[in-house]
């Protein structure tokens, strides 16, 4: 009797889970399905949940700059987004690795203060920084350049990265480092030769976060960049929607392309990324 009851309960719970998954993931499915339909099918009968004749015409159109709105230049946007995200990640890691390490190894009141500041700062809306950063960037003559975006994204990636890396370095046993120190290695040498290689999973997760922060951001590309040739993917896509005349097939194809790096990162690094995300909220 008891087993039967448990089984029945398990069935309902599983059903709830499946319905939940279908509902929350429907937009992802719909994005993909729309992207492999031709315009005629999209505009004539979009209620059919499966595509009649799957086609890659939309992908060809956006990559070949053939979308009916001619100023939609996906290859350029893609190139810009990749360049900005990659450089942001590199610069952020250069700043955040030593800082995260220092904080993990010298847990004094000073280090707590910095962590608190980092967290506190993370709670401000992007708009608080936007006006001064814009003026600063104009002064530097970097307005309407990709460097303006790299500067802005690095600003927001550094605090969080330091915070994450401090956690990762903290898990490395001190005894290993002490051996190297006794053998005459300098603190910097210990970091480069001993601790950093051990912290690679954490560094990779932090790098992925930084990359995605730059890849996904909307606010700063809207403010700092004007020229069509310097737009990122996010601004390029969002600028394409105008009412029912929107070329939805092409837009959805571009959205799928924009989703590829994040989905790939999470598929490959899921455990690390989720752990990093959770550690912040649970431990502090």
């Amino acid at each position, binding site marked *: 009797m008891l087993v039967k009851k448990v089984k029945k309960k398990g069935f309902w719970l*599983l059903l709830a*889970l499946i319905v*939940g998954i279908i509902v*929350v*993931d429907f*937009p*992802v499915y719909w*994005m993909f399905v*729309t992207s492999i339909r031709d315009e005629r099918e999209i*505009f004539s009968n*979009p*209620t059919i949940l499966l595509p009649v004749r799957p086609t890659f015409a939309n992908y060809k159109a956006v990559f070949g700059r053939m979308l009916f709105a001619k100023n939609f230049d996906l290859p350029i946007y893609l190139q810009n987004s990749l360049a900005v995200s990659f450089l942001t990640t590199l610069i952020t890691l250069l700043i955040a690795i*030593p*800082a995260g*390490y220092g*904080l993990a*190894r*010298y847990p004094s009141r000073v*280090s707590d203060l*910095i962590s608190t*500041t980092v967290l506190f700062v993370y*709670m401000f*809306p*992007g*708009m*608080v*920084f*936007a*006006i*001064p*950063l814009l003026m*600063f960037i104009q002064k530097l003559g970097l307005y309407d350049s990709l460097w303006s975006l790299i500067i802005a994204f*690095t*600003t927001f990636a*550094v*605090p969080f990265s*330091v915070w994450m890396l401090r956690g990762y370095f903290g898990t490395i046993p001190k005894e290993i*480092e*002490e051996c190297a120190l006794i053998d005459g290695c300098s*603190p910097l040498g210990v*970091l480069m030769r001993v601790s950093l290689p051990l912290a690679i999973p954490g560094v990779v997760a932090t790098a992925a976060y930084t990359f995605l922060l730059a890849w996904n951001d*909307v*606010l700063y590309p*809207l403010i700092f960049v004007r020229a069509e040739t310097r737009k990122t993917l996010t601004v390029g*896509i*969002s600028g394409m929607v105008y009412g*029912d005349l929107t070329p*939805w097939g092409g*837009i*959805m194809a571009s*959205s799928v392309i*924009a*989703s590829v790096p*994040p*989905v790939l990162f*999470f598929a490959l690094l*899921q455990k690390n990324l*989720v752990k990093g995300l959770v550690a912040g*909220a*649970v431990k502090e």
Partner: protein
Amino acid sequence: MLLYKKKYLYFTVPVFVFLGLMIIFPIVYTIFVSLERSRATDPERYFVGFDNYRKLLVNPRLWQAFKNSLVYAFLGAFAKFWLGFGFALLLNRSFKGRSLARSLLFLPWVIPVVAWCTTWRWMYSTHLGIINRLLLLLGLVREPLNFLGARSLALPSVLLVGITEGYPFFMVTLLAALQAVPDTLYEAASIDGASGWQQFINITIPSISGVIKISLVLGIIWSWNSFPVVWLLTKGGPSDATHLLVTLSYEYAFIRGRYDYGASLSVITVLFLILLFLLLRRLQRGGDVGEEG
């Protein structure tokens, strides 16, 4: 321990410089701009004291945005919390395909916000959108609904997009907390004859209450400060029905070129949030004392 000396703090020097230059300075500078007359089109700037604040605080647009921000942040955070908690409880058992289910439920958070919002705009579309097509097909509505264009529907529609995009954070955080509750507690309770519900109330909830509080606070702050969902879906319209304080600040600063109003609104956004949390803390303390008494 002796080996770790103060010189390790030198490693943090770049971050000190960086925090000072790129984060503390802009915050202070925003406050300065909010006390000036400062426009994008006009290089002339001068000090005006609290004039911008005085003008904004009697502007009905600010209060509309404040109301929307309250609804968006609190309703949004609570809905995300309950959805995430529900899924976390469903996932907190061992069954086949559990890790696949977790990945699929996490997917909306992984999709870039631009792709997510653009897809929802397509689904919300009045004449071609799948939602209206299905509602018409099922006979639930006679006329297609203008989800993002009708004053009464716009905020709930935007809220729904924000909730579906944001709940996975709560899900993974609460799931991690649930899994950290020691099994022995449940075993002991079972032996004492506690029912599933009693265990949930007396063991699960108290064990994870810290995480619940922190995640709710974070959720409210992030929703309050959230710019992209609203801007990508409605740009604050129709007639301010979905404007948040942050989007209004953006509109003044970068669409109208009024840096002064934009800066003042940013400061107001932060101040109101701090005030809200002070208020909440007081209410909570009052509640605790009441319970004890």
